[in-house]
């Protein structure tokens, strides 16, 4: 057993990529612990907590800390991974890759997707705006005054800023960020919430209704500080889009003055608007149903698969979520229980989003007391965990708990909605494609036990 710790200068890869490398190394037979991460304060702290002695390093350096009987093999594997990551494509030896969004924009492009660490996202987003390009800011952690500044500059340029903290968008049929595979259709979404937009659009898809575009605006857009600039622009863009026949506006509780401004814009549009104001009792499923009715389409019985064993319920109701909006919707509907959003900043610093990396949620699931009612969400689509049920099902099967899953996805998603549902059902979970219904079901089981 030995530790091998070293620092590589001038090697940068994003945290998700490095976590995949860490995981691959830690699965080697001669390795017990493998930390491959940029040497940020946070990551240095994590490695120190694991008992590693660390040399001095800058946040721009790559930190490697290995423990096990055969760290040499792990180090060799690391070199192989890093070489593969930085290998240039054929004929690219003399081609300079763009190092900034500004440089990439000079070579052409229609839209920038920024997912660099939050404190650096402003520079890349500003590059896009100054190049006259709309930008989706997936990164979170940007101060509100910078968000406002970006949106003001974007307004001068006539371009849209989606985000920050914008998890999903669909533009011209291309899914950005965490994006479901949706059929094309007449509904345009403007959403202050990523998972909120995913829930509504997936239910519409299930009802046979497609989307034209899904435009995120960022959770703070309707605050007094930001002033709704992106919401207004997105509404106007969809109004002018010939493919959009109905707009669904998914918003978070707005500043009253901003709400008034948005209302005026909504009233001036030619395209009808269905509004879903989160946190006011209106749930996402109801919003999807309102949209279907506005289109004159029938509301189906939302798909569900019940494999739960609600016997022996005696514990608390526990919500283990990856989507913030889904989490608060479920908590509001259930009216009781302990709900945690593992997609919150507090849990994603220095690690991947729970839609990609299930580790934290699996730990939380293992720690639920016997007899609990557990409510959790599984979000499918591009960029999400390629097979979430594979890790969840055994954990569910091993618990003496009643597990209810809100499964957000479409039949066309790469993970295969039905296979995921059936795997979770077979493990003993009740699976709902509507988060609201999942929450009601969980609450009623929990209440049934209490009464």
């Amino acid at each position, binding site marked *: 057993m030995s530790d091998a710790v070293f620092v590589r200068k001038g090697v*940068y890869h*994003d*945290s*998700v*990529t490095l976590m995949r490398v860490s995981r691959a190394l830690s699965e080697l037979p001669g390795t017990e612990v493998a930390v491959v991460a*940029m040497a940020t304060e946070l990551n240095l702290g994590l490695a120190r907590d694991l008992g590693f002695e660390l040399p001095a390093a*800058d*946040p*721009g350096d790559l930190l490697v800390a290995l423990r096990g009987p055969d760290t040499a093999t792990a180090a060799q594997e690391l070199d192989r991974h890093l070489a593969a990551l930085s290998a240039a494509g054929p004929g690219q*030896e*003399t*081609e*300079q*890759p*763009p*190092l*900034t*969004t*500004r*440089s*990439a*924009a000079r070579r052409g*492009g*229609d*839209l*920038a*997707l*920024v*997912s*660099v*660490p939050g*404190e*650096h996202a*402003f*520079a*890349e987003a*500003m590059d*896009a705006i*100054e190049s006259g*390009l709309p930008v989706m800011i*997936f*990164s979170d952690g940007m101060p509100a*005054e910078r968000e406002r*500044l970006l949106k003001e500059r974007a307004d001068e340029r006539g*371009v849209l800023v989606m985000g920050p903290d914008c998890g999903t968008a669909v*533009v*011209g*049929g*291309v*899914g*950005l*960020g965490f*994006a479901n595979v949706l059929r094309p259709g007449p509904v345009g979404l403007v959403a202050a919430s990523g998972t909120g937009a995913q829930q509504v659009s997936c239910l519409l898809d299930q009802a046979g209704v497609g989307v034209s575009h899904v435009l995120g605006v960022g959770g703070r857009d309707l605050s007094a500080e930001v002033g709704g600039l992106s919401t207004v622009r997105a509404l106007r*863009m*969809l109004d002018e889009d010939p*493919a959009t026949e109905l707009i669904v506006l998914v918003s978070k509780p707005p500043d009253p003055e901003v709400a008034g401004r948005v209302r005026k814009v909504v009233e001036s549009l030619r395209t009808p608007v269905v509004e879903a104001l989160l946190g006011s009792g209106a749930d996402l499923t109801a919003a999807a149903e309102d949209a279907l009715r506005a289109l004159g389409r029938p509301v189906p019985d939302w798909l569900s698969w019940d494999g739960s064993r609600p016997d022996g319920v005696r514990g608390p109701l526990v919500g283990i979520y990856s989507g913030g909006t889904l989490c608060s919707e479920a908590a509001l509907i259930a009216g009781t229980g302990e709900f945690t959003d593992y997609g919150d900043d507090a849990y994603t610093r220095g690690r991947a989003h729970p839609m*990609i990396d299930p580790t934290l949620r699996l730990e939380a699931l293992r720690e639920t007391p016997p007899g609990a009612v557990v409510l959790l969400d599984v979000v499918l689509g*591009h*960029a999400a965990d390629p097979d979430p049920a594979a890790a969840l099902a055994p954990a569910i099967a091993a618990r003496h708990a009643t597990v209810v899953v809100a499964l957000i996805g479409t039949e066309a998603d*790469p993970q295969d909605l039905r296979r995921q549902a059936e795997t979770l059902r077979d493990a003993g979970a009740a699976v709902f494609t509507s988060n609201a219904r999942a929450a009601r079901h969980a609450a009623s089981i929990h209440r049934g036990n209490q009464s």
Partner: protein
Amino acid sequence: MTLLDGPPHVIAAGAGLLADALAEQAAAVTGVTWRPPLAGTAGDLARVLADPRRQAANDLAVRRLTSARPHLTGVRRASEVLRQAEPTFLHAGPPITWERASGPMRGALVGAMLFEGYAHDEEEAVARLAGGEVRLEPCHQHAAVGPMAGVVSPSMWLYEVRDLEHGGTAYCSLNEGLGKVLRYGAYGAEVLDRLRWMDTVLGPVLSAAIELAGPIDLRNMIAQALQMGDELHNRNRAATSLMLRELAPAIADAAPGSASEVLRFIAGNDHFFLNAGMAAAKVSTDAARDIPGSSMVVAMARNGTDFGVQVSGLGGRWFTGPAGVPDGLYLGAYGPEDANPDIGDSTITETSGLGGFAMAAAPAIVRFVGGEVADAVAATRSMYEITLAEHPAYQIPGLGFRGTPTGIDVTLVARTGLLPVVNTGIAGKVAGTGQVGAGLVSPPVEAFTAALRALAENAADPSDP
């Protein structure tokens, strides 16, 4: 086409996973090879990038830099141009004192003392310089530049270059040739003899010839030389030939008696054009000075001890760090241990989009940058990442006549961590040695982070455009 009209071509900066997800959908993706900015610069970067003046200021700065039309209009005595009341020598780089001056800088200052007759011998020259009897001021402070030590004394002849677009004027000394020369810190008898010949023959003949030939379009000459394999810093063979061709008839007309020795002197020095090119670069970058909010570099210069930069939006302030020792090829038996830290104002060529930035134009000297033509191409290509524009007139045939990368932006240096590629000659560190080699040098990163900090401190409030 508006955003919603079809599948967008996406520029993806950040998590590889999200770019991969786009590729899986067969969407057109350009990946940004993003990395964190230089350590400790994130806050300053945000403040500078939020400065509402920045983009327009930089657009204006780089437009002025690239639209300048430098013309060689004359050759004049420094005393006529500088009109200093007390004895003053100009020198390369940011301000320096005798105490902090390196070997070649001291050697050149001693040579200038002897040349001007301010001292009878080396010992007296050193004593007077150490006693502060001669003022030392940067060339840049007087609209001038000087290669290597860049020492200009009152009776030396200077090129006068005017920017016919914006009206500025810049000066640079005449090139003495290679080997044991004053600018590399040599001051032996042969050095002083040559300076005296330049004083009495070369200067007056060139002055008369240029008067006859009329203003010479240096922008045009530089553009042609780039297409003939010069990068205008370490290779000036084509530009020198072009200049000789332009001047020869006028030299013959102006001074039939000394024409042959003057023409032979010019023809024997492949770097004769360098000083005229530097004055052209200086007058172009000066056109971009003093634009509030601009983060564009308008001067990079070294005095053999410090490497300094000046930024358009920050007036005449210097931001410095220790000058590095160049990495390069050495003459004869000299080696890295003989090399002085980086010296000279000739980095004005890189500042204006030439030199190391135009390396791809000069395959003949690729051994300075690693040996292969691909290295030269890579050096130029990387500089597009830290510059604001491509020069409309200075083009590189091998890159499909793409304009050279021009206008270094301090924020882009901090964001990419890429430092300007600088070609340079290497001076011997012992006073009196002269040139020992040529190669590449990296500027100190702190000069750029200090400039960024000052830009952040001077940034305008974003809410008050």
